[in-house]
C-alpha cells in the first residue's frame, strides 16, 4: 500500500541549471523539502539518511546512470520501496517501457515547464497512491 504524504523530494540530477530551476519550483510552488545530489553514487550514499518520500531521477548521468542507480536503490532494504520518477529527454515509447519495467512509477519528459512541474508530480503521486 502506498504512503500518501508527499513532503520530502530527493532530486538526483547532474545538470546544475536543471537542479536550480527544479529546486526553486518544488520549494516555492510546491512547498516541498528538497534534497539534491549530482550523481548516482552520491544518491546511494545519502538516500538512507534522507529517507525521501519521492525520488526524481535523471536518466543520463556520467559514471552511474539513472537505471543503474534505480536498480541499486531497489537492492537497499531501507529504501527499496521509495517511489521513483525518471526525468529524461530519452522518452520514446520503448524507453519509457524500460523505465517502468525497472520500477519507476512514471516519467517526466525534458524539457518540462517549470510552472507546471509540481502539478505533473502531484498528478503522478495521486495516481500512484490510488493504484
Amino acid at each position, binding site marked *: 500500500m502506498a504512503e500518501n504524504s508527499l513532503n520530502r523530494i530527493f532530486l538526483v540530477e*547532474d*545538470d546544475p*541549471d*536543471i537542479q*536550480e*530551476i527544479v529546486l*526553486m*519550483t518544488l520549494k*516555492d*510552488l510546491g512547498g516541498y523539502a528538497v534534497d539534491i545530489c549530482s550523481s548516482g553514487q552520491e544518491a546511494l550514499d545519502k538516500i538512507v539518511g534522507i529517507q525521501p518520500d519521492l525520488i526524481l531521477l535523471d536518466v*543520463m548521468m*556520467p559514471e552511474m546512470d539513472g537505471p543503474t542507480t534505480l536498480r541499486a536503490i531497489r537492492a537497499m532494504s531501507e529504501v527499496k520501496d521509495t517511489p521513483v520518477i525518471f526525468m*529524461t*529527454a530519452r522518452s520514446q515509447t520503448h524507453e519509457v517501457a524500460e523505465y517502468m519495467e525497472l520500477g519507476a512509477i512514471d516519467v517526466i519528459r*525534458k*524539457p*518540462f*515547464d*517549470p*510552472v507546471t512541474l509540481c502539478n505533473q508530480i502531484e498528478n503522478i503521486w495521486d495516481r500512484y497512491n490510488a493504484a
Partner: protein
Amino acid sequence: MPHDPPLSLQDKVRLLRERYANSVEEKLIEISAAYDRLVGEKEGDDLAAAIDGLASPIHKMAGSAPTFGLAELGETAAESEELLILYKGNPDGFSNEQVSNVSAYGTN
C-alpha cells in the same frame, strides 16, 4: 528601511532564464573544445571517451535549453546528440561532412 517585495515564481523563472541565456556562450565554448578533442581523437584509442566528452554537454543543453525557453537551441542540441549516438555506434560509417555538422550546430 523598506524591503523589496518577494519575487513571484514567474519573475524567478524569468531571472533564471535570463541567467541561462547569458551562460549559453560559455556552454558553446565548452562544446567547441570537446569537439576539438574529438577531432584530435578521430584516429586515436580514446575515441569513445572523446565522443562521450562531447555528448555530455550537448545532452545537458538538449534537456536544459528548452526548459529555459530556448527551444530552437534545444532542438539543435538534440539533433547533435542523435548524430553522436549514431557516430559512436559506427564511427567508420560517417563522412567528415557529417562529423563536422555536429560542430556546425554548436557554432550556428
